[in-house]
């Protein structure tokens, strides 16, 4: 039995660009912005980086292929760089590459960069892309909202909610994230909205309206990871350690087998159980202080509360409306605004989530810093990505914890 990576790798520094419609910036500008913050935070020289991972999804719309855009934008010292892509879990994949390299002892300091420049397409929403030479011949030319919206139609039917009831809980999710983002200067969308505005918003894909959908944003996020020993040598006392990094991709069951009911993601519970085991978490509802999940759409966040084990099956709408995942709830979710409002530059998103957990655990989250009743800050946070669509996807679950010297 492998020992896992718990506490073998820590974060030396992180950075995150402002997310949003960054009309004046290209992917190189965004990477430099995130990197400058991270390298300053780590307190190391650039040439100490021994290996780097670049996560970018729509390379054809922005950077082009390979890891060269990272190596060249940062003028890295010709160290090994790797480009990874795993749909919307891409950012977490970059982090996984860097963390595994350090955990393996292949290097002491590694860089993970995620970037996406989406707003060079000329139209709203995500760019169009091929699904594959065979898939294009039989799959519908679906959109992301259309693929996720189906969770809502199936969920409402399966669990006996009227669409109006379900949409009320979905609206609460969007309003909560907008409220949280008002405290986040780097967030893309920082306006407050009301449930009625969500319900009245123009239709995108039944039953999703435009305010059920996350922002389509430009941005980059970056992590520099190292060993606990190197971190100590850099003078760091409290550090954030990686406790688990787990991934569960679909194997085609949701696409082709009747056993999947279409109401949730089949992969997330698998990734979560592995991550809880790796981190040694027996009771996630009690032990995890805050979560950042893949709220590409309001309905996604709702079903994920069940897939991650925080709500009982069929009960998420009640827990959401009860405020369980609000800023002052039992398990604050999307304290930085989430994909919904911080924004969703795809390659950067997983690292952006880690960035927020990192800041919160170190007590550096500014206006949005969470405090527990006793004044103690949060100690364990979870991030979750879902790359793809409910029919076929890659779920990633990461757990970060405070490691005190």
């Amino acid at each position, binding site marked *: 039995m492998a020992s896992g990576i718990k506490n073998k790798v820590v974060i030396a520094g992180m950075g995150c660009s402002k997310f949003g419609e960054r009309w004046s910036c290209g992917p190189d500008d965004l990477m430099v912005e995130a990197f400058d913050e991270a390298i300053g935070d780590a307190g190391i020289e650039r040439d100490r980086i021994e290996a780097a991972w670049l996560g970018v999804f729509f390379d054809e719309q922005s950077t082009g292929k390979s890891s060269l855009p990272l190596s060249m934008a940062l003028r890295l010292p010709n160290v090994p760089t790797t480009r990874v892509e795993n749909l919307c879990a891409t950012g977490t994949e970059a982090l996984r590459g860097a963390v595994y390299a350090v955990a393996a002892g292949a290097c002491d300091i590694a860089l993970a960069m995620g970037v996406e420049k989406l707003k060079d397409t000329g139209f709203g*929403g995500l760019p*169009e892309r091929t699904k594959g030479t065979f898939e294009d*011949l039989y799959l519908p030319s*679906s959109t992301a909202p*259309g693929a996720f*919206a189906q969770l809502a*139609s199936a969920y409402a039917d399966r669990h006996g909610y009227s669409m109006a009831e379900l949409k009320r809980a979905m609206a609460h999710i969007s309003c909560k994230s907008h409220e949280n983002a008002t405290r986040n200067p780097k967030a893309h969308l920082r306006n407050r909205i009301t449930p009625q505005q969500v319900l009245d918003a123009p239709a995108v*894909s039944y039953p999703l309206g435009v305010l059920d959908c996350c922002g389509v944003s430009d941005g980059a996020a970056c992590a520099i990871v190292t060993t606990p020993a190197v971190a100590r040598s850099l003078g760091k006392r409290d550090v954030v350690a990686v406790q688990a990094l787990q991934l569960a991709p679909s194997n085609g069951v949701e*696409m*082709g087998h009747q056993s999947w009911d279409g109401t949730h993601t089949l992969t997330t519970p698998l990734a979560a159980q592995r991550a809880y085991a790796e981190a040694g978490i027996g009771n996630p509802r009690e032990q995890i202080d805050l979560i950042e999940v893949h709220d590409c759409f309001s309905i996604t966040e709702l079903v994920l509360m069940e897939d991650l084990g925080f709500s009982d099956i069929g009960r998420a709408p009640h827990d959401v409306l009860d405020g369980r995942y609000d800023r002052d709830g039992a398990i604050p979710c999307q304290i930085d605004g989430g994909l919904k409002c911080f924004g969703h530059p795809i390659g950067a998103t997983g690292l952006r989530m880690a960035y927020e957990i990192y800041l919160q655990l170190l007590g550096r989250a500014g206006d949005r810093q969470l405090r527990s009743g006793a004044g103690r800050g949060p100690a364990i946070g979870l991030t979750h990505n879902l790359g793809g669509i409910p029919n076929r996807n890659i779920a990633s679950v990461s757990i970060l914890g405070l490691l005190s010297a």
Partner: protein
Amino acid sequence: MTAQGAILRYGVHVPKLRLPRAAIDAAMAWANPPARKVSPGARAICNWDEDALTMAVEAARSCVAAPARGAAREAAALPHSIFFCSTSAPFADRDEAILLTSALDLPESIETLNLGGSLRAGTSALISALRHAHTAPSLVVASDARLTRVGSPQELTYGDAAAAMMLGPSGPAALATILATRTVGSDFVDHYRMNGADFDYALEERWVRDESLLQIVPKTVAELLSAAGCSGADIRHFAVPAGAAAAQRIARACGVEAAQRDERVLTECGDAGAALPLLMLSGALEAAAPGELILAVGIGQGIDALLLRAEAGVREGPRALSEALARRREESSYVRYLSHRGLLNVDFGMRAERDQRTAHTVAFRKRGALNGFQGGRCTRCGTVQFPPSRVCVNPACRATDTQAPYRLADSAGRVKSFTEDWQAYAARPPYLYGNVEFAEGGNLLMEITDTESGEIKINDAVRFVFRIKDDDRARGFRRYFWKATKA
């Protein structure tokens, strides 16, 4: 000519969408006011994803009903040849009859013939197929979806539809025996369309009636009846591809004015070109009692005339035309119809610019799945899946190379989840799709067609139809695949 064969089965497809002629009047009467009055009825129009080929598939399906699951198809029931007859076939050079064969999941060894160039294509194919009918069945499918110029008389009179007939040896189950046929050609250019042209150019109807219809039809019919040893008074049903007024005069000239004529096709569907004579004949087969004589003609640079006798099979025969005509949805928008037919260049936004280049290598090696909707059934665990794959999708099985072809086109489906997508490009927004579960098991994310916003619910029953998937406008290629539609 002596009796050689019989119509064993037939099928009809009329697109669900009907554009009321009054809607055309309302939009276009300004352009030619003195000639226009309020026109009755409606014309059947293809949905954006239908064309002559997809209609042909739908019409032919009931003629080649699949054998029971597990049972081998009886070789005798297989057509020896398939005729695809159309003057509006989507491809000028591609064997569409082979695509039709493939969509019907029939063997590739069947002979195929593609006929066009005349509105008689369908009746000429019937006569040609008769030559083999005593030894092997032949399937004749006639289908037309002709473009009509905006504001033209044809815009009011034409309609889109298809009909299919399986010919074979006469027997107790036959619907009608073909007793005699007669063909006379004549280079009478009442209308024409050059290759590559979009629209017909039609000459004066009175000239066509007086100099062609009222001359060649009565003469040929008289010869046919005389050779068969019967008279006009013996004819109970007259299937003639002409409007009510002209048909009346032709019937009188032929001495068959007492025969019943089905006027529904032209009123409720419109002139479906090469398919029209077969649609008219379908109406006669519905109405005929065993033993009654049917006279059917096809007209286009000459005439094909067929004399048929209804057999006992018509008692239990299908009511395919009535059912097809009853399955209708009124198209509320003349402008949307123009857009569907490519007669109006609507701005659908940048998402419509997507490159639809086809990897033809893939399309060829996956043709069973794409054309014939063949999934795979695992011979070890029984799981049905689409597309077929090397390794079984059942998580409890995952056996390699165990799947046998399993056609899903005729399966029953159930909507497991769905959405109405207003963001995706759709020729008829919203773009409707969802996860569909097959009755045998297996799941597929599919487009749902012929269905409007608000009509689909979870657990709705669906069936499957062969439709246009998309058009590659940059390279002029059309792709087809199967879609779900409300059962």
